[in-house]
């Protein structure tokens, strides 16, 4: 029974690792579409600072958590994250979402850049005169 459980655990772990490796490889070689990952789609700017900070926060938090997991080997419990890190992570996501909300409502509120305003300009309805 012990052998069976060990085989099953390693099997599932291996599947996860191989799948993650395939996804990572395809992202690096751009076989998975990553076009515009950091681009601001509403404001006309090329790189959005809100997106950059969220990407850095996500990768940093993921790396830090993996490190905590390797340190807590054999404890039988997923390691706890310090509340400060969790708050920082939430704030990072909040900034990203506020930026996205701003992009959504900037045109109706008259705060958008000229390029963005042009994109949202409604077409003139065709009239039969």
């Amino acid at each position, binding site marked *: 029974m012990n052998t069976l459980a060990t085989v*099953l655990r390693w099997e599932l772990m291996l599947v996860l*690792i191989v799948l993650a490796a395939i996804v990572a490889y395809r992202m690096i070689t751009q076989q998975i579409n990553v076009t515009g990952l950091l681009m601001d789609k509403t404001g006309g700017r090329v790189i959005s600072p809100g997106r950059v900070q969220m990407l850095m926060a996500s990768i940093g938090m993921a790396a830090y958590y993996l490190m905590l997991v390797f340190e807590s080997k054999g*404890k039988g419990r997923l390691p706890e994250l310090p509340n400060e890190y969790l708050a920082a*992570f939430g704030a990072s996501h909040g900034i990203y979402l506020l930026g996205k909300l701003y992009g959504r409502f900037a045109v109706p509120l008259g705060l958008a850049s000229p390029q963005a305003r042009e994109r*949202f300009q*409604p077409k003139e309805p065709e009239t039969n005169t």
Partner: protein
Amino acid sequence: MSAATLGLVIGWILTIFIGVLAAMILIKVFNGDIDLNYIISDENGWASLSRFQFLIFTFVVAMSLFYLILTGTPPRYPEIPNQILALLGISGGSYVVSKGIQTSRDVSMTEADNPPEVKDPKITNTPIVGDGGQVQSQNPPPNPPPVP
């Protein structure tokens, strides 16, 4: 055959079945039969950061879980602290809110591009009550039946 042996046989059958199934999926993903090209893209074809971070945290938490199960003595399902649930909640919530904003923006842009056409008012048979309480119809009355 004792119950323990039967349980062991069923366990091995399930393990082999899951292994073969997982191998088939991985081979199909590797060959491109299962297309992952747009795994983090939104409906407009742009890569989405919220989908990307959701993918990262799904992998991180799943791997951490399996790693702790593998290294535990004796192996057992680890406890999940509230902070991790909050982490996944922030990640998933951010994805959902972002998708909501995106959809709302797309609908707004579609409406701006395709303004509603001005149509003639539709004629219906709904009676209209006049000022004097008389019932009027929008449609002209049908022709009276021929008198025999």
